[in-house]
């Protein structure tokens, strides 16, 4: 069975693994023990102790925080219950004018701000830009991912999660 050390996974995630080695990993059969090593690498990276249950972005994690499962930024800021859209608790910058779009697209033709805007979803604590939506004005904010966390741990990882408290 293919398997890599935690150090290799850490370098891969950080984008610092040399390309020939990365290329070999991409071409090889996948390592079935990846998930927990990956989570261990990320757990060491974050500055908090709540166990990571599932990474959902580059710096965004679902974790067990006491009795709750919450979406958390790498800086430790909690966006609340993981089943709700974390974006609704984020800070936002909307680029809906030629002037603000030009800041990101200095030399190209721009979208028409009457047809399209850019929404930047930002951690209100550390300022990390977690997600960018390009949407027509008035388009509802998308809830990117609702993982079947219980099904994943129970059926695919074979390690069922502790049930949440009654009423949750």
């Amino acid at each position, binding site marked *: 069975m293919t398997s890599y050390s935690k150090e290799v996974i850490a370098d891969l995630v950080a984008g610092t693994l040399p390309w020939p080695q990365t290329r070999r990993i991409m071409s090889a059969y996948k390592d079935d023990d990846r998930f927990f090593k990956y989570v261990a690498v990320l757990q060491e990276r974050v500055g908090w102790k709540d166990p990571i249950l599932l990474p959902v972005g580059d710096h965004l994690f679902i974790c067990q925080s006491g009795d709750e499962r919450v979406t958390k930024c790498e800086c430790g800021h909690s966006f609340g219950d993981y089943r709700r859209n974390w974006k609704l608790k984020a800070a936002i910058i909307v680029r809906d004018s030629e002037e603000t779009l030009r800041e990101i697209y200095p030399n190209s033709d721009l*979208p028409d701000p009457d*047809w399209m805007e850019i929404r930047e979803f930002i951690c209100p604590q550390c300022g990390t830009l977690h997600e960018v939506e390009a949407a027509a004005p008035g388009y*509802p904010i998308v809830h990117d991912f609702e993982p079947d966390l219980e099904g994943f741990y129970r059926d695919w990882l074979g390690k069922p999660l502790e049930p949440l408290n009654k009423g949750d």
Partner: protein
Amino acid sequence: MLDKPASALRIRERLLESERLMDETGCYDGITELHLRNQDPLKFETLHTKLRAYCVSAREMARRISASPGVREVGEMVVAIYTPEGDAIALSNGIMVHVHTMSRFIKWMIRNGYEENPQIRDGDIFANNDAFIGTVQVPDVMDVVPIFHSGKLVGWAGAVCHELEAGGITPGGDVALAQERFTEGLFVCAEKVGENDELRRDYVIRCERNLRMPIYWVLDEKAKVASCIDMRESVKALIDEIGLDYWMQVSKEFIEEGRRAQLARTRQLTVPGIYRGHTFYGHVTAGKPGYQPLGDPDWLYNIPIEMEITTDGKIIMDFEGTQPWGYHSMNCTPAGMDGGMFVTLTQHMNFEGLVNDGAWMATELKLPHGTWTNPDNEMVATATSWALLLPAYGVFQRLLSRSFIARGFVEEAFVGQVNSPMIEMGGTSQYGTPFGMAHFECAAAGSGALAIKDGLDTAYVGWNPESDMGNIEIWEQNMPMLYIGRSIVPNSGGAGKYRGGCSFLSTWLVSKTDHLRLVTSEHSSRVFDNGGLCGGYPAPTCQKHRAVRDSNIFELAENGAPLAHHTGTNPYRSELEVRLEGEHVTLEGPYITAPHKTGDVFTHSYNGGGGYGDVLERDPVKTAWDVENGFLTRQAAESIFGIVLDEDEEGFPVANLEATKRHRAEMRAKRLARAKPVSEWMAKERERVKAADFAPEVKKMYASAIKLSPRFTGDFSAFWDVDAKSTFGVE
């Protein structure tokens, strides 16, 4: 040698039985056990490898027969071997999107009684380019031949080439101006075009008399037939070796193995749950010549996708909430949607093992009736369905990638494919003859970034995993234009920790013709039709066309003065305007104008890919390299990525790490100061929604989605706490 059937084929009944068995057992053709695989796994694998080798070798041979630079240079061809019921067992590399569309074509003939009339006999050649029967668009012409052994239909060999000229209302393959089926070009609707291994002369004559450049289509036909015969004879020789009964069983086990492998791979690489994303496409044609007033000239499409990964590993993609079909060339049939799914899966999940139709069987597409994904009118045009397919499957790639990131397979995460507008042309060639051609250098757009590195620059499109822009010299042999520039477009990849791949721009001098019609297809306007991921920005929207008519370029050349080789980086004044005199044209959306002639200059820009991650985390050293090599401008490095560059003693950019750190801290603080809580923004935005204070095209988009989709209506109403129907005046 031809093999006459010994008895009635009854393949239609067999197809129905196969589908019934799949319904009953959940396994392909009722294959619940892989007996032959279990008996001798090595023989099993070896046989599939042989089949794949037959396909790859047949395609390579056929490409040498073709006259089309699309097929010869860029590889716009795929071949595959099918079961008698029309399910793909093995395929070549190339435009894999068509492996499953050909499957639909074969099944369509079986279901429609082709056994009785026109009959399916050894040596027959059937062709199709009707997307409602089974292809993506008119230029994707497919040929299949039945494989008989011992008087029995034992399979099919099939081949597809993308034709560079289809004889439609505008020249080229992707007929941009087609607004309904009748202007798309030459249709061949599941037609028997040859017998006894030879194309019928009357069919060839029809092609010769209905196409602007028949040499491409006709020689591609010969190439496809040659590849099919080659595969057929190889399969027959293989059956002689392994026995007919073994073949009939193993070919089905290959597909069931493929289906199981796809489910297993989904369980291995992803996380179950619901994933959502969307993209948009803008079409601007008001005032452009040639468009019939059949619908609104300018429109905006939303393409929302909800993907469910179930715990048994099935991937279900749902397009509910998207827009109705329209009087334009960008509609798509379920066959095209299947094809997009298949080629995306092949690149992202189904890249090893027994690559075949089994993977497709482990997925499900929900295509709402009446939308552009599944028109309820078979008269609609689908000539440029890639315009919407590429952005849509770019979303699919981002959704899949989020699942890879969640699971830890970050090396597979990919921000996705982008639309890549194509140039079609026709008129009088540089040789003084009539011509028509699609320029296929669009098959080398920038790719989306990966989660661990930048995207590919000028090297990717979704429909062909072996993307290639072709050689300039070959293209110049086939059109009355000379390259005076082909260059990377700086900042054309979406910004991010890892930037999207950059696009390129070509600049041509029209030469030796007094009548060159240039038309561009798949050209979105006013919106981003791509996206970023995890904080990365979308790549720039499609660029406008810039051209100069009656330019003074020959005079400049004679005087040794500098010419314009690209449009430059000033969005308000292009290099063409700086360097050339003449009638300057800047045109938004599809380029449809009066013919060009010698001395005109024309530019066309392709698209870059979306970015990944927060821009303020980009590697400063890599960025200095990007600036040095023209992928980013110094201004963008500093103002977007927060990277301060100094110069070394030779004038090359060098990252100033300390200054960068300080600059980024300031940018992050400014970002926080500028941002407001989403709840605050929503409260204000809700008032705008309640008043439906949007551009007419945006309002129409909402009204259309609300009319077609109860789910979109419910979601929209719930999100904004409004009555969506009354807000947008929907009954």
